[in-house]
């Protein structure tokens, strides 16, 4: 029985989300993750304030050669990158790109996936069957291949990367939402709503949906993490953001592979940025999962 814990919760709470948030704040890992995410968000937003230079400006190209780049020095906190741009500037603006791509890709995947899942889980019947067969098919294609093909169709642009990453997540989100919607369907509170005479659409959107989004939100947080990494993987495979001077961590990392021997910091820094951001999202996501999972609330 869950009575003891419930009784223990102090009055004046903002619904289950409020409870979840407070529980989340009690977890050190979640707070650490949140701080990381927040930090990078601030960096992304305040990029122009953090660096005096324009991103992508190859102003100092004259100082680099194929086998050497100037390291940290006056005027350039971290030195130059292989195009002759200020590395620090690129990293700072890279946060923008990575976050925008990650958030948009996840949002897009979430939107489409959730729509499919909602239709399937809410309407059931042949809509459900069809949607699930299609996601079956999509799931049996390796996600990276899917992404690669999308990127190939769309050409090399950040938009293509977003769609590519989103496309691979659509079936995942769809299934998740459908699954938890179906689980809600038989629950007493839904039956109760029906018994009160609430129309189906209102039950689906007003009652089932808010209670089903938990796992989807968790997944979205985790996708935010993988998106950053996937952007890098796509770059590695020669897809994704095409303009080499646009500051984007994945690209920077891939580009720096060529100079690993002579200038390892060119790879290690964006690599670390990717890893840390992904870590931030993962920590938050994992903690959210635990917090929202009714099994772990005991």
């Amino acid at each position, binding site marked *: 029985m869950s009575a003891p814990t419930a009784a223990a919760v102090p009055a004046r709470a903002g619904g289950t989300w409020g409870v979840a948030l407070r529980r989340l704040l009690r977890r050190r890992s979640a707070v650490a993750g949140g701080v990381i995410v927040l930090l990078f968000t601030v960096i992304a937003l305040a990029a122009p304030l953090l660096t005096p230079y324009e991103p992508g400006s*190859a102003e100092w*190209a004259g100082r680099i050669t*194929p*086998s050497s780049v100037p390291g940290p020095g006056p005027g350039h906190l971290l030195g130059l990158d292989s195009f*002759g741009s200020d590395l620090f500037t690129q990293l700072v603006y890279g946060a923008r790109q990575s976050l925008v791509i990650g958030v948009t890709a996840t949002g897009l995947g979430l939107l489409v996936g959730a729509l499919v899942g909602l239709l399937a889980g809410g309407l059931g019947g042949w809509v459900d069957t069809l949607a699930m067969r299609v996601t079956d098919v999509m799931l049996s294609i390796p996600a990276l291949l899917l992404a690669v093909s999308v990127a190939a169709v769309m050409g090399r642009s950040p938009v293509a990367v977003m769609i590519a990453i989103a496309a691979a997540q659509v079936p995942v989100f769809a299934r998740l939402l459908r699954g938890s919607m179906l689980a809600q369907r038989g629950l007493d509170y839904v039956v109760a709503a029906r018994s009160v005479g609430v129309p189906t659409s209102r039950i689906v959107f007003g009652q089932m949906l808010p209670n089903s989004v938990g796992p989807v939100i968790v997944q979205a947080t985790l996708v935010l993490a993988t998106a950053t990494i996937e952007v890098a993987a796509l770059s590695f495979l020669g897809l994704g953001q095409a303009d080499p001077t646009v500051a984007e961590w994945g690209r920077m990392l891939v580009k720096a592979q060529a100079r690993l021997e002579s200038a390892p910091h060119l790879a290690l820094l964006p690599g670390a940025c990717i890893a840390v951001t992904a870590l931030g999202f993962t920590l938050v996501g994992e903690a959210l999962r635990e917090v929202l999972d009714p099994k772990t609330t005991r």
Partner: protein
Amino acid sequence: ITSCSSERGTQKTAAGGDKAGTFVFAAASEPVALDPAFVADSESTRVANQIFEGLVSIKPGTAEPAPGLATSWSQTDDGLNYTFQLRKGVKFSDGTPFDAEAVCFNFERWYNWNGPLQAENISNLYQLVFAGFKTSDNPALTKSIYKSCAAEGDAVTITLTRPYGSLIPALAISSFAMQSPAALKQYKADDPGASGDVRRNEYSSAHPTGTGPYLFESWEKGQRLTLRANPGYWGGKPKIDKIVVRIIPDGTARLQALQSGEIDGYDLVAPADVQGLSGAGFQVLPREPLNILYLGMNQADPLLADIRVRKAIAHALDKQAIVSQTLPAGTKPAEQFIPPPVNGYADSVATYDHDPAKAKKLLEEAGAVGKTVTFNYPTGTSRPYMPSPEDTFVAIRTQLEAVGLKVNAVPEKWSPEYLERIKAKTDHGLYLLGGTGIMNSADTFLGIFFGRKTVEWGFEDKKLFESVAAARSARNLTEQGEKYATVSKELMDLLPGIPVAHPVPSLALSPRISGYVTSPLAAEVWNNLQIKG
């Protein structure tokens, strides 16, 4: 089984124990075919060069033609008859003798190809040199230059239908190497076989038979290709017993494999790795560049159709800066569309110095200040003549912007998108491209680039095309060189593009290998390599 683990220590002793040892070379991709007649790619050629020889060879360390299976040759003044004196006592590795009949058999084999074998990807180089076949199934082909072959004891005479000035250097190309008629017949070299692709038939994948210093031993697809020293090689048995060609597609992986001692060498070292490798005691051997990297300017673009704009761009470029920032050490800026050692290099041409002021002025005259120019460049590729297109693009862009042009960057994947954009579509502007010579002849540069109207360049200039045709059909090399030199001059006035540089490709070798002499044509034969104990 010889037991030898790849651990560095034990490997050294193992190699020391068996004096000649094994030379392991990493290739970026698998050879397409072992029958050299069908292939032009560098990995196939590299292997073919060890197994096969042509009538003409290349003087080590240069791009010069040298005696090969023919000890000498002569030609008639009209440029239509070439007579080759054949080397005596040479045998194919299947034991059959190399003689005049064998030579003619090879020429007739190429000449008689028909149907699918006339596809561009199958007989690419034959078509490039000889222009057509006995019967043309492909309407794009013209009349064959080759006419007939006559065996006269130890000599062979090749008759042409019209003069072709580059025949001698062309015959040094591995596609025209001599193959054993017996083996070609026995293994049905021209039969598509079960796979439906002649390049993968039994001959081409398991029985290549030539006269070269090494014999084909085995080919484990995707993993390795093994060659053994040819004990009966006319030039003496090679010092190395065995060659293994490994396939390592990733550049970083090749570097690391060399560093960890798993391989003895690889080609096309990334410019950034050169210093590190030589610092760590590896040999990094530069090749004299026989290539060109140019910035094309598509005249179908109205902006670029204006010669003042093209000239302005030429003056805007600081080639020296591009070279030092993005190209391998030793690279020289280019002034013409052919590299200096090549026959046809002009003494003096119009040059366009780095002069931003002049560039700005020209742009003003043309009313092009602040205009946006499309700039196409490829991504995800590294060519010998263009090791890092993205870096080069960035460098050029910066320079263009400095003189007041706006740049609309259009990056695309090298294959097929980029190639398609440049070669088949008209909507490109500035673009990066180039080429590597397959023989010491301007024909492989100017002949291919400017022989006819192409969408790549987007201009029509009958006079230029005629000069090129005339140069092609010059009666001998000297005459051809002179004619191409004029073409070169004309080109630099016309300025369809800007020659940027001749990037130096280099090859990395383990310190235990000695005796490697690089060739500008990358046509090294490994019979003189040695492995230090």
